C-alpha cells in the first residue's frame, strides 16, 4: 500500500537460474520410477501429484531483420493448467542452457516465471509475438527440499487449439524426466545435491546434463 514499499520491490529482482538434469523413462517402466520417486521424495505418504499443462511457445522476431538474424529472437513459453482452469497462466522465459565445464554437474539457464492473466496469449500476439509451436504435457511431479522432479509425457495436438484427449498424440514411447532447482546464481552446492539424487535413480533413469546445442 505504501508507495515507499512498492518502489524498491520492483528494483530488487534477483536473477534466478534453473539448474537442470534431464533423462527419460520408457512408458512401460514409468510406474517403477514413480514408486521409487515417491519413496525418495518428500510427502511419501501422499498420493502422486499429477499435472496436466498446455504450453504454447511464442517467438518475437525483428520483422525487418528477419532474414539475416535468425538468432535475434525472443521466446516466451505460456503455460496453462488444464486440470486447474482457475489457476493463472504463466509466462516462462528460459535462457540458453549452459553446459559449463566438468566440475559443474548440471545445466544452468536463466529462468523467469511470471504469473499473468489468462488473456496472455492474445496479448503476446498483439505485442508481435507469433506462436511457434504448442503441446500438452501430462505427468507427475515430486519435490525433495527445493529439488523438483517431473515425469511427464509430451503430446502433440493433432488439430490445432484442441486439448481434449482425442486430439492428443503422444510423442515417442517415453516420459521425459527432469530434475531441476530454481535458485539465484552461484549456488554450486545445488549441483552436488542434484547429482547425488540422480545417482539414486540409476540404472532406471540416467539423468544427465544434455547438451542442447546437439539438437538439430
Amino acid at each position, binding site marked *: 500500500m505504501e508507495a515507499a514499499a512498492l518502489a524498491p520491490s520492483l528494483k530488487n529482482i534477483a536473477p534466478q537460474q534453473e539448474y537442470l538434469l534431464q533423462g527419460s523413462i520408457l512408458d512401460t*517402466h514409468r510406474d*517403477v520410477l514413480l514408486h521409487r520417486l515417491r519413496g525418495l521424495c518428500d510427502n511419501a505418504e501422499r498420493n502422486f501429484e499429477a499435472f496436466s499443462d*498446455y504450453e504454447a511457445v511464442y517467438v518475437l522476431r525483428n520483422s525487418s531483420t528477419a532474414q539475416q538474424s535468425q538468432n535475434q529472437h525472443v521466446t516466451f513459453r505460456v503455460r496453462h493448467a488444464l486440470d486447474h482452469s482457475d489457476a493463472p497462466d504463466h509466462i516462462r522465459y528460459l535462457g540458453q542452457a549452459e553446459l559449463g565445464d566438468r566440475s559443474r554437474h548440471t545445466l544452468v539457464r536463466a529462468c523467469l516465471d511470471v504469473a499473468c492473466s489468462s488473456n496472455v496469449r*492474445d496479448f503476446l500476439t498483439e505485442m508481435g509475438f507469433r506462436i511457434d509451436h504448442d503441446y500438452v504435457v501430462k505427468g507427475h511431479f515430486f519435490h525433495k527440499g527445493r529439488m523438483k522432479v517431473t515425469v511427464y509425457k509430451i503430446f502433440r495436438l493433432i488439430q490445432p487449439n484442441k486439448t481434449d484427449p482425442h486430439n492428443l498424440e503422444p510423442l*515417442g514411447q517415453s516420459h521425459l524426466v527432469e530434475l531441476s532447482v530454481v535458485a539465484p546464481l552461484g549456488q554450486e552446492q545445488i549441483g552436488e545435491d542434484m547429482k547425488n539424487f540422480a545417482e539414486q535413480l540409476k540404472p*532406471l533413469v540416467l539423468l544427465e546434463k*544434455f547438451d542442447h546445442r546437439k539438437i538439430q
Partner: protein
Amino acid sequence: MQPPQTNEEKQLDLALDDLIQRVRELKQGVSSFIYKLENDYQNISWPNMMEHFGVLSSGLSSIKRLLKTEKMPLLRNYVLFPILLSPDRDPHLEKLTEGRVSAFNHEVVPDYLRTKPEPEVEEKVQMLSSKAASITPEVAQKQLTMLNKITSNILDIINASSDDWDKDSASLRNALPPTTSQQETAMLIAAVTKGVRLRRQDSQGQMSPAPQMGSMPTQQHQQQPLPQKPQMPGSGIGRVPSAVKTNIKAAVTSHPYQRP
C-alpha cells in the same frame, strides 16, 4: 602424619583420581539417561536413544583404554583388605556411596570385595573342565575334524548360493529390458526445448497465431476511447495470405482458451 609419598604412590593417586573422575562422568551419563527414560520417554526418539547409547559406550571404552595405558600402574598388584568390619551405620561411607552402602558390615563386604566368581559358578566351571578333561585326545580330535567338516560344508553352501545370487542378479540386470533410451531422451528434449516434431508443417498450423485474434473484437469494443490501430490478423507478422482467413475463423469456435 602421612609418610612422604614415593613417586609410585603419587602416580597411583593421580591415576585413581582420573579413574574416579571418569567413572563419575559415566555414572552421571547413565543416571541422566535413566531419568530421561523414566520421565521423558514420550519425547525420546530412536536416533536420540542411539546417541545416548553411543555416548555411554564411548565412555566405557575410554575407561578401558585408560586402564591399559602405560601410565596406569598395574592395579591388580594392589591388595585391598578390610581391617575393621562394623555393624554400625557409617555416615561417612553412606555419603561416599550416595546412600547405597550404609554400613561396612559382614553382609556387604563379601559382595563388594569379591575377587573370585561365586561358589556356584566356580562349581559349574569346575564340572565343565573336568568333563573336558575326561575326553581322550582321539575322541577330541575326531570331534574337531567333524566340526571342521561341517563348518566348511556350510561355508561351501553359502559361497555357492551367494555366487548364484550374484550371477542371478547380474543376469537379471542384463536380461531386464532397458528402462531408458538415449534416443528417446534426445528426441523428447529436442521437442520441449526447440519444438522439434511439434511444429506444424502445414500452412494452417503456420497461421495458428491468428485464432487468438478472433477474440479481439470484444476487446476493442470495451476499450473504445483508446486510440485505435487497424486490427489485422497477423499484424506484426505481415506475411498472412488472405486465403487462409476462412480457416482461421473456423478454428475460433474450437479454441479452448477463448475469453468468455
